[in-house]
């Protein structure tokens, strides 16, 4: 009934075109993401998964082909603030309190002080950081900083959340907890998520669909539906179907690495 959240067709991305340093980052990418999906992009280092994420977010332009977000050009979607972005590093502004960091996007958008603060508080409740409003970023652990970054990305209720290895710098325990948390947020908000990772268990646990990418030039080597039931819990990680899916992804990755 609605337009696809993301529609990528025939996209190539070449860096340094016409120079000896030319890099063919992506070739012939076609991908459609429906609203409400939780998509993981997985592949070996340098396969262009972060590049693909940046194309969706209009932080880079495709060399050929087109990227549409919510039926609009990616550029328009960016100006309309259709997506929130979370990076591997939390990239909090170290001179702002937690609350002020979460308010930042709303401040840029010109939202009034009262509403800004109310929205930020609401989001901090959602990521379970209600008691840390006045803390400064350096006073938080890595996992908590990343939760602030997620809250910040959600304050303006984007329909799309772009996450670039958001838990890559966290320890295993924190990482698993954050995966569960981001799924919880996803189910509460109905946001479409595009999630870059290089961890097979992570991709399988969080996603409704895994996009397996080949090494440079990055191509889509396989799409794997992950039909594990929701809500996914600690038990999911011990489910045989979870292991079967991981094997499937692993084999798809092995297939591309050979080429």
């Amino acid at each position: 009934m609605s337009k696809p959240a993301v529609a990528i067709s025939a996209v190539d991305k070449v860096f340094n075109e016409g120079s000896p340093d030319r890099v063919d980052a992506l070739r012939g990418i076609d991908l459609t993401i429906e609203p409400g999906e939780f998509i993981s992009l997985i592949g070996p280092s340098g396969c262009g998964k972060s590049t693909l994420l940046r194309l969706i977010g209009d932080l880079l332009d495709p060399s050929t082909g087109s990227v549409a977000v919510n039926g609009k050009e990616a550029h328009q979607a960016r100006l309309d603030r259709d997506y929130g972005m979370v990076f591997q590093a939390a990239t909090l502004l170290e001179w702002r309190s937690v609350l002020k960091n979460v308010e930042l996007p709303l401040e840029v958008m010109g939202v009034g002080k009262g509403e800004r603060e109310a929205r930020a508080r609401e989001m901090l409740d959602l990521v379970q950081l209600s008691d840390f409003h006045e803390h400064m970023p350096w006073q938080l652990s890595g996992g908590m900083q990343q939760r602030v970054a997620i809250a910040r990305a959600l304050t303006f209720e984007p329909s799309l959340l772009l996450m670039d290895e958001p838990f890559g710098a966290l320890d295993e325990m924190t990482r698993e907890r954050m995966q569960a948390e981001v799924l919880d947020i996803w189910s509460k908000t109905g946001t479409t998520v595009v999630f870059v990772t290089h961890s097979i268990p992570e991709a399988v646990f969080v996603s409704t669909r895994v996009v397996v990418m080949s090494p440079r030039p990055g191509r889509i080597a396989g799409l794997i539906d992950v039909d594990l039931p929701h809500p996914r819990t600690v038990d999911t990680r011990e489910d045989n179907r979870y292991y079967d899916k991981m094997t499937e992804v692993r084999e798809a990755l092995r297939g591309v690495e050979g080429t």
Partner: protein
Amino acid sequence: MSNSAGGVDVTTFGEDPRPPTSKTQTTPGWLAIRVRRYLPAVAIFIGGLAMWETAVRVFNIQGFLLPKPTEIATTFVDEFPTVVSAGWFTMKEALGGFLIGSVLAMSLALLTARWTIVRDGLMPFAIAINATPIIALAPIMNNWFGVTSPLAKMSIVAVIVFFPVMINMVRGLTEVDESTIELMRSYGATPLQLLTRVRVPNSFPFLFSAFKVGTTLSVIAAIVSEYFGGSREALGIYISQQAALFHFAEAWSAIVVASVFGILFYLVVALVERAVMPWHASIRTITD
């Protein structure tokens, strides 16, 4: 906490933040900690003066080579009104030049953030001039503005302070984390918003390290440029005249005043730094 039926099991968030450092902690050992920290410096200061005094007496060093600390102290007390007012006269030149130089430098740095062509055109020269001994211009400035005019001294100070401040601020405005810029772009932020929300606060640590260098430089520049001639109320003139008359205890008293003013200036800037950016790593590790 909230486990919605449609969600996943999210129950434990047991991560503790690193304990916030409290600046006003008054534990019983507070005084002991302070004493322990500053005692070595105080001991070395007193010990050094004692050695100096002893050496002059034992080796019978002539007063025109090195006066005794006690002699300097006595002279300092006698000459106190003179040296302090001379010191303040010179300090005003240093402060004035510091302000003029800093304001101009920051304005120009902001322009480079807006027009990169300004930066590309100016930075090589700024770095080159910063590496030249600007104090050598002092006689020329004296000639331009008049030997006794404080403006001549201020302009030397301003030039000396200008370059480190400008170079550092440009660095601070430019050396912003790439993902922070991507983040701001993703919000559709304007260049002006990027400047005010990110680049300017990012430049504060750079700016304050330049200011701190600038405090010392400005006092040095003011005094040294007075050595090339200046008002009779100035500290540099006082020092050179007393030295010419072999009144070395007087000269040393004036040097003490110069260093006290220099240190005070530095401390004031360091305090402002703390107030402006308590979040910065260099500050928060000082508080224990």
